[in-house]
């Protein structure tokens, strides 16, 4: 499994490879089709945000493997003028699209962790979706991590 994917964002068309990479990583990590759709949608929203407000940026997606959970971290960065009021940008209803809560607030609600760092030199959005291993998976993990026994 490739654990990192990097997609430059310069136009709406770049949303397709970004979504495809997100979905492929999500499937590799065992996320359900529904969660893979939610991740692809969140990635689309932040890609759209880059194209609409800055024009150029990059999305890096990383698989996270921990003992009891798997995660897909998405980091979207641009070198635009930054977001003046982050709290307001994340409020429900504060968007240019009729205040329906799409865009950044929508992406935040689809993911588990969400953080924005913004300054006059650019903006970085970091968001992660987690999947906790079930009991059977944890058992398999433990079995696979044991050193091979000599017969």
């Amino acid at each position: 499994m490739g654990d990192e994917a990097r997609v430059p964002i310069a136009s709406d068309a770049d949303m397709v490879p970004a979504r495809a990479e997100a979905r492929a990583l999500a499937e590799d990590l065992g996320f359900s089709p529904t969660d893979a759709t939610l991740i692809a949608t969140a990635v689309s929203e932040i890609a759209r945000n880059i194209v609409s407000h800055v024009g150029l940026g990059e999305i890096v997606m990383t698989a996270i493997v921990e003992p009891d959970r798997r995660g897909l971290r998405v980091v979207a960065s641009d070198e635009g003028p930054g977001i003046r009021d982050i709290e307001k940008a994340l409020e429900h209803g504060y968007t240019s699209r009729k205040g329906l809560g799409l865009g950044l607030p929508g992406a935040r609600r689809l993911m588990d962790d969400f953080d924005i760092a913004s300054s006059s030199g650019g903006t970085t959005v970091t968001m992660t979706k987690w999947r906790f291993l079930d009991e059977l998976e944890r058992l398999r993990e433990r079995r696979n991590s044991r050193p091979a026994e000599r017969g």
Partner: protein
Amino acid sequence: MTEGERFREAYAKGLRGYLLVGGEGQLRIAYELGRTAVAEELGVLELADAHHGALVAAVRAERSGDEIERITRAAGDFFRESLSAFEMVQRGFREAREGAVTARHHAAMVRRLSDLLADGPLPGDREGFTDELLVLIAEEARELAEALACLVTVAGATPGSSAAGASWEAGDSGWSELLAHASVRALADLVPRGSRALRLRGDELTAIPAMHALALEAPRATAWRSWLAAPLWALDGCRLGAIQLFDKPGPGFSQADEDVVVHLAQMASAALERRGWTAA
């Protein structure tokens, strides 16, 4: 042609494209269709209707059971993608509704506290007032943050003038004993001086040395999934006491929980100071 008819036509075209070509490019069209439906304020029933009509058209000429199954499964993927924008809106609606409920609850709590302050006893009768206030704060904090238990402690300037109020979920008598542990009360000291609050996940809390002794005395404390504390600061910067919240099901205490508890701590501090309470 009405907006709804135009949408149904676009949806049918998108689904035909996905069934022919497949791939992420076509799924992106489904996502865009869902976004358009949301932006044009079409309902989820209209989207379902568009999907059903397009699916019926796609399978009408098919005779092979395998092909019908393939089409139906692929159409399900396309439909799921188109629904994702509605999911975003639904989650936003839920969040706004929860925010409104919390705000109403918060306002009611502020009114109750204000009434208590207005009707409260004079400084000379401080003890009864303080106990009542601390229990009320503990109940409100626990309820607002959906914690399993809450402990509010204050330490006065004179010996024996400390007080505490606690609240825990009904039927769990174990909390009474647990919250009486000196090391549980001392956890409030983890909040750095000058900080408004400290919020930790269960794993972060159990890694703290102060928790090791507590884990020996009360193993149950190691199962807390989250912990939140907000000190009660006097105007001169002295610490009057603290509100501690223990264990919250789900992802743990949120920023909104922290804000509410900090507000409660500020109100409690003001109430205590107005009644002549001075820090230890």
